[in-house]
């Protein structure tokens, strides 16, 4: 059986059980709609357009926030990899800030930054920065010594070696951090929208939930799921593009 077919069957089974449980009436149907009801609501909502706007806003926030965080984190890691003094100064600060949950700093961030784009930028970058930075800092220092000595003997400067040896050698590990950041980005975007809420899927879900519009809440969840799938697909495409060699090398090593 192909893996596509297996996935399709598995998902179809999930919806069948959901439909069955919902129709049994174990939970009042006001609180637990059937998949068909949710689908009908979703179609209505998409026609009205509000959910589509919310979806696009959230997706854009997550993607822009994650991209900015990745750029900032890799740039920081490149600097700390190049200058040992900077690394020794920055790493204790990183250890201090890293365990802070983004939700905990949101009230203070609202106080300082208001409810606009700056708030989202700050929360998303803060949440997504650490996994990328930590993976990148580790990866940039982990290139084999013999590769670096070879590059030095050919006349490459330390900056050249960073860009042409340490960075490409570290990309597979850096991407581990990027994947974590991508999933965190969506969580952070939706959570921030719930707190700061004026738009986006977080606001939509909160609004629908608090006003007991249950089918709409489920429709919002479906859209959040789709956003997650899109973010994941983008990361996987980038992964294939940037470090496809690594997967193929690992596959070859596994086959031998």
């Amino acid at each position: 059986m192909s893996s596509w077919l297996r996935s399709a069957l598995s998902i179809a089974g999930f919806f069948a059980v959901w439909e069955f449980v919902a129709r049994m009436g174990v939970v009042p149907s006001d609180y637990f709609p059937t998949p068909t009801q949710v689908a009908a609501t979703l179609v209505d909502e998409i026609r009205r357009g509000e959910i589509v706007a919310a979806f696009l806003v959230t997706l854009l926030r997550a993607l822009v926030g994650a991209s900015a965080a990745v750029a900032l984190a890799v740039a920081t890691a490149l600097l700390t990899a190049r200058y040992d003094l900077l690394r020794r100064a920055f790493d204790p600060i990183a250890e201090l800030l890293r365990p802070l949950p983004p939700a905990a700093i949101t009230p203070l961030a609202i106080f300082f930054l208001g409810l606009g784009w700056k708030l989202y930028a700050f929360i998303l970058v803060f949440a997504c920065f650490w996994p990328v930075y930590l993976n990148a800092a580790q990866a940039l220092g982990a290139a084999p010594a013999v590769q670096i000595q070879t590059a030095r003997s050919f006349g490459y400067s330390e900056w050249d070696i960073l860009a042409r040896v340490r960075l490409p050698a570290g990309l597979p590990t850096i991407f581990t951090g990027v994947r974590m950041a991508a999933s965190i980005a969506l969580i952070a975007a939706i959570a921030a929208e719930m707190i700061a809420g004026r738009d986006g899927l977080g606001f939509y879900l909160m609004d629908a939930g608090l006003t007991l519009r249950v089918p709409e809440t489920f429709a919002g969840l479906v859209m959040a799921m789709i956003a997650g799938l899109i973010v994941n697909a983008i990361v996987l495409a980038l992964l294939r593009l940037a470090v496809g060699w690594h997967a193929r090398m690992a596959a070859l090593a596994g086959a031998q």
Partner: protein
Amino acid sequence: MAVLDVDAITKSLGGAEIIGGLSLRAEQGEFISVVGPSGCGKTTLLTCLAGLRRPDSGAVAFEGRRLDGPPDGMALIFQDYSRSLLPWRRNIDNVTFGMRRIAATTVEKRDRAMEILAAVGLRGFDRHYPWQVSGGMQQRVAIARALAAKPRLLLLDEPLAAVDAQTRADIQDLLLKLAAELGKTCLLVTHDVDEALYMADRVIVLSNRPTHVVDDIRVALPRPRDQIATRAAPAYLQLRERVLNLIRAMRTTA
């Protein structure tokens, strides 16, 4: 003027004295092998010669100029070819990686890289990645990359220790052929006395740590060398016995 002039260098690493007043000279076009008991500091010596490490005292001069970092005109070939090659680059791009100091356009560099790959017997493997070819072929890519830098001195750090016997013989002959054709000066560090003698015009025998030169033996065997005839020549066998006795004496006194 000697291509390489090493004058009484010493080097300690982590409190251990590795090199203790070592001197040697390499003349233009010479093939020199350096052998010594295991762990005598051959690799440390090579990194000092390559300008990757600075000796604590003494001096290394390359073509009359005192080394201050890795110089233009010298290239290194390591034992650990699978790690020294860059796995995200195709073989041809690994070769052009060696051309950092070569003034040429990208197209010219690629053309030259193709020629060098052909010269080391890798025609048709330019688009492969290093991990898609055998160990012996990977070492050929590393050799091609070193040649791409147009070095006048090649430093070889046990380049063939990790390949099978047949491949080793093939690449030994390839290296001898290329060194002779291109007029390169070569310094090969190895623990294999047979390889040292087979390749070299001179074999330098090192002592235990802190290492210095205990013998400098001229290998007056005719060239081109032949894997069977050379190794069966009486002169070869005498030299082999002499070097092996030297090393064994140091192993038992160590």
